[in-house]
């Protein structure tokens, strides 16, 4: 299920029965290339037509492949391949050693849950997330000194260790927390925490749970689990689910920890620079895409829309839309724009929808016939029956329908619109801002009906206001938009 064709697995096994069992479980999910020797697998790899997504190891004894030349080669030359060890009884020492040597990415005990293995492999095939960032060797890390946070409910041990570590080096600060909850507070306050080492058994939230959360909330913070208890199942889950960097057994030794933390800091810097690179690249590339999209929208809309009103409304509308700030561009947005028909469909579907709405709209400008009561009535009608039928709409109806759509999409009631009438003008203001989570010029992953309808309602607001000889003023904010529009009016 990789982007092209089936997902491939390289299986290294000792026992033919294990191979058969594995093939029975996964033959319908993966193409499996099985080898009984390291050499066989190593001969296959360079000539393989497609690189396998994963190497699965099924040794007779769990520690059987510690010295495997296949694993060492895979680590050094194929960092993108996910390495999964499946053993009968995994000893904690073995797991610690495999992590230290970075020989495996996942580790499971028999009997395995096929769902979980399949999910790990398919995820790697889809996102290539098994990829570890290349270590950042640049020593240039200006800014404040990074911090190591040690979480343990035994504060005396932590304090002693902190003092020792502070004396031994000048590269990082050492912070302490006595619970997972306190650790979360420290992380909120101190943005320079680069590494978290947490004990597993603590009252309240456990260490593994904290690391699971950190993996999502602070993906560049390097995670280390430590314990005196040697629970191998927890350690294994922490590897597979928490993607911990190392498992550190207690009791601690300051010299050993110093070298561990130094390695962790290198890893942290690699993660940060990989993230920054990907962010700035995404932003840069999206800026280009946005320009192209704007040009194509103008090209497909201007003639029709501007022809209807006799004014360059399309450009005004797009400028207004661009002032709404949405979430920054990320890799999935770029992927959607490049690898799917999104860009094409967006312009086509939006232009199509706007065209259909203009088809039912009465053309020609209307002057100064609006009073508050008439507007109120039209708005009530539009709010009650938002689905515009195909009958011809007056500009006032179109305006009110557009308002209804926008209010609905923001979860706002009619009362959020303020109407004020003076001698010659009726003013309509949004008392609370409209929610605009996505728009025509924002990074998007998918074309949806609500997006198209909300955006075309916004355009129709511009068009109908002008047809009514009024004017509109729009201010974008954080995922929000405020507007004021004036219509010529008369008092009765």
């Amino acid at each position: 299920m990789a982007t092209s064709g089936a997902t491939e697995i390289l299986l290294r096994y000792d026992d033919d029965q294990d191979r058969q069992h594995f093939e029975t479980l996964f033959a319908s999910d993966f193409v499996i290339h099985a080898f009984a020797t390291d050499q066989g697998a190593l001969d296959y790899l360079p000539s393989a037509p497609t690189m396998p997504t994963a190497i699965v190891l099924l040794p007779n004894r769990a520690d059987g492949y510690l010295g495997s030349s296949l694993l060492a080669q895979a680590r050094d030359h194929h960092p993108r391949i996910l390495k999964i060890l499946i053993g009968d009884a995994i000893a904690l020492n073995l797991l610690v050693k495999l992590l230290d040597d970075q020989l495996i990415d996942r580790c499971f005990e028999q009997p395995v849950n096929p769902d979980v293995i399949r999910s790990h492999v398919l995820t790697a095939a889809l996102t290539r997330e098994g990829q570890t960032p290349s270590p950042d060797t640049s020593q240039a890390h200006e800014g404040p000194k990074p911090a190591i946070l040690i979480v343990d409910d035994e504060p005396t041990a932590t304090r002693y260790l902190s003092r020792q570590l502070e004396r031994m080096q000048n590269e990082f600060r050492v912070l302490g927390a006595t619970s997972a909850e306190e650790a979360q507070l420290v992380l909120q306050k101190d943005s320079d925490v680069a590494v978290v080492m947490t004990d597993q058994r603590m009252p309240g939230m456990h260490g593994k749970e904290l690391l699971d959360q950190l993996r999502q909330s602070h993906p560049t913070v390097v995670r280390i689990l430590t314990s005196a208890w040697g629970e191998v199942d927890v350690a294994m889950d922490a590897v597979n689910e928490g993607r911990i960097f190392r498992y550190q057994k207690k009791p601690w030794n300051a010299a050993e920890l110093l070298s561990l933390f130094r390695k962790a800091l290198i890893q942290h810097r690699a993660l940060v620079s990989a993230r920054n690179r990907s962010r700035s690249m995404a932003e840069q590339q999206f800026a280009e895409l946005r320009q192209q999209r704007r040009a194509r929208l103008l090209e497909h809309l201007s003639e029709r829309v501007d022809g209807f009103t006799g004014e360059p409304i399309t450009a005004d509308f797009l400028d207004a839309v661009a002032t709404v700030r949405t979430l920054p561009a990320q890799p999935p947005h770029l992927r959607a724009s490049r690898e799917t028909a999104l860009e094409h469909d967006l312009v086509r579907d939006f232009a199509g929808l706007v065209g259909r709405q203009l088809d039912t709209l009465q053309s020609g400008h209307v002057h100064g016939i609006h009073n508050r009561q008439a507007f109120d009535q039209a708005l009530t009608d539009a709010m009650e029956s938002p689905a515009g039928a195909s009958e011809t709409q007056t500009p006032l109806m179109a305006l009110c329908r557009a308002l209804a759509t926008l209010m609905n999409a923001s979860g706002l009631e009619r009362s959020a619109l303020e109407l004020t009438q003076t001698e010659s003008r009726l003013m309509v203001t949004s008392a609370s801002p409209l929610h605009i989570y996505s728009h025509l010029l924002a990074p998007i992953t998918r074309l949806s009906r609500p997006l198209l309808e909300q955006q075309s309602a916004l355009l129709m607001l511009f068009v109908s206001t002008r047809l009514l000889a009024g004017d509109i003023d729009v201010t974008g904010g954080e995922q929000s938009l405020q507007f004021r529009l004036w219509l010529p009016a008369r008092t009765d």
Partner: protein
Amino acid sequence: MVAGQRRLRLYVTMGQRLLRDSLLFQILLHEEVELVGESETGVDTLNRLQGATPTVLLIEENLEDNDGLTIAEHALTVNPSLSILLISDTPVSSGRMTIYLEAGIKAVVSKDQPVQELIKTLFYIRNGQVYVGNWHQEPAPAAMLAYQALSGREREVAQLMASRLPVRDIAGRLGVSCKTVHSYKDRIFVKLGFERLPELILFMQRHQHGAAE
């Protein structure tokens, strides 16, 4: 609940009440799950998410007011450790799946899949794990094969259970003890991969004119 497991605090965003209720009836049978909030729209979800502090958000992709994926992306900026399960109308391609995963969605279940798949997925993602099922495959007729592998007596008990006969009456009719019926029942559930009686009833009735005769 396993010590150290996060309790599954569930928030559900689905437009239609009927669909939402049907799912929740099934999901809430699991005692680790606690419903902390529900919404019909995306805007309402974002307004209430922070107060509800869910660990898992189950959200439909096609909502009335906003795109479900856009809402999910915003929910993640508010609460990055939220696990999100997206419900799509149709099966997704591998290309789309990559986009979802990169956007931080933990799993996608389509409306074409059985409810058991949704519940299984919900539990796999509870700790923030990504779960990719074999969504691209035709669902294997596993339960049907398993049913055909049941013994004659097991099938008989399954049919009686599916006609909602109490265990006591089944025991009486077959001339065995209640304990024996219970052990048949356990075996049938294990073999068919079911957890509860309604699943068995649905399976038997759905296939009553087919191979489950």
